[in-house]
């Protein structure tokens, strides 16, 4: 089986597992929406402030939800010893990584698409800029969370207290991606007269290129030991 088919099989398997455990997906969506609601309460009824920071609230909600998502994507493999079986199948560790990272990316994009109208409604924001920029920001930002997140989830999968360690490792690492995603999303909500969104998307693209390569290389070492 070629590398690409292995990636697609892993992707299909992970999405099927998530589909069969739909209650967990709904719990994740509820978590993201509750976080959005809490941000609105924390800031208060200042519509101007809410509108200005809507991009930040959306990405923080996605970031907090991503830890639960990433944690689960590797835990299902470790709990039943499925990771060893996958490796013995044999499946290339890089294919497992890219399959899982793609699955996590797709789920984060889905979460972002669902949370977007709620963000617009709660923060009284509107799409001033191009929806394509928003889509690019959502896709590239989700990819930026998924690649290092999948690697770190694998690193911490066999450790007690994983739920605390994963965000501790992941949050400082993804600061550049978070900044770029928040900035490019906010520019869609508030307008981009200086045309800065291209630079932020480029930064996200560079971050993705670096981490999708390096994490793919390191993942094999992590799961094979």
């Amino acid at each position: 089986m070629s590398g690409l088919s292995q990636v697609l099989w892993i992707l299909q398997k992970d999405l099927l597992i998530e589909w069969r455990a739909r209650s967990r997906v709904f719990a994740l969506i509820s978590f993201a929406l509750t976080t959005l609601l809490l941000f609105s309460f924390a800031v208060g009824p200042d519509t101007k402030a809410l509108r200005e920071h809507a991009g930040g609230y959306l990405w923080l909600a996605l970031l907090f939800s991503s830890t639960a998502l990433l944690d689960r994507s590797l835990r299902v493999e470790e709990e039943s010893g499925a990771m060893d079986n996958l490796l013995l199948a044999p499946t290339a560790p890089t294919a497992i990584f890219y399959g899982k990272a793609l699955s996590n990316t797709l789920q984060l994009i889905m979460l972002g698409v669902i949370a977007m109208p709620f963000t617009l409604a709660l923060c009284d924001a509107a799409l001033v800029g191009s929806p394509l920029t928003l889509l690019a920001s959502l896709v590239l930002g989700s990819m930026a969370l998924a690649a290092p997140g999948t690697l770190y989830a694998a690193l911490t999968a066999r450790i007690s207290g994983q739920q605390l360690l994963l965000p501790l490792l992941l949050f400082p690492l993804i600061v550049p991606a978070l900044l770029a995603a928040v900035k490019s999303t906010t520019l869609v909500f508030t307008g981009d007269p200086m045309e800065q969104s291209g630079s932020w998307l480029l930064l996200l693209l560079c971050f993705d290129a670096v981490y999708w390569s390096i994490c793919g290389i390191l993942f094999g070492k992590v799961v094979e030991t």
Partner: protein
Amino acid sequence: MKWFHISGVIGVILLIIGHGMGLFVAPKEAMMGETGRILYVHVPTAWIALVSYLCAFIAAVGALWNGKRTWDASVVGFVEVGVVLTALLLFQGSVWGRATWSTWWTWDPRLTTSAILLVAFSAVLLLRSVIEQPERRMLVSSVATIVAFVDVPIVYMSTKWWNSLHQTMSSPATVSETMVTPLRIAAFGMLFLMLGFVGLRRRIELVRLEREWSLAPPPERPAALNLNEEGT
């Protein structure tokens, strides 16, 4: 006397000379006056913290490559000393910022990058502390160190685009020789002191690892092998 003791002593002597020259020989900084003398402490701390993380990255690659305990102990030494230097750097930066910018903290790229470095590498140490199996710990901390180090230039670039208040970097060509010399001496002093501390920490970690590996139970045999031996 071990090499790291000698390195530490050389470091302290050079730091005393460098800081002494910075305080009493070098001229006042044109814009900041006497407050500017903190640069003889602050700049070497920043340089050597980055050198420490770079060495940790190299040691982590080495540990992943050949799986030797000596590389693993080096990762611990460089990361721990790097974290201490970054904490010192943030403290010095805050004091300097208070005197020059009238604020303890600002979202300047270099300050933000230093804070993120401190959190990222502290998390590596925390992760290391919760893993009991030595082989797994070496692997996990090496991977986390490599990933955290790769992030440094991206964090710096992103925060630079985000907001900037820090003064632009000076080069020896634009700074008076009377200021460059104490700065260089202090930087070498900090480097030798860092190597001294890392050497000492590495030795302690090596002793601990040797003891841990000698006490560790032998790895379990795979179930398939047991079945074959029993002929079933």
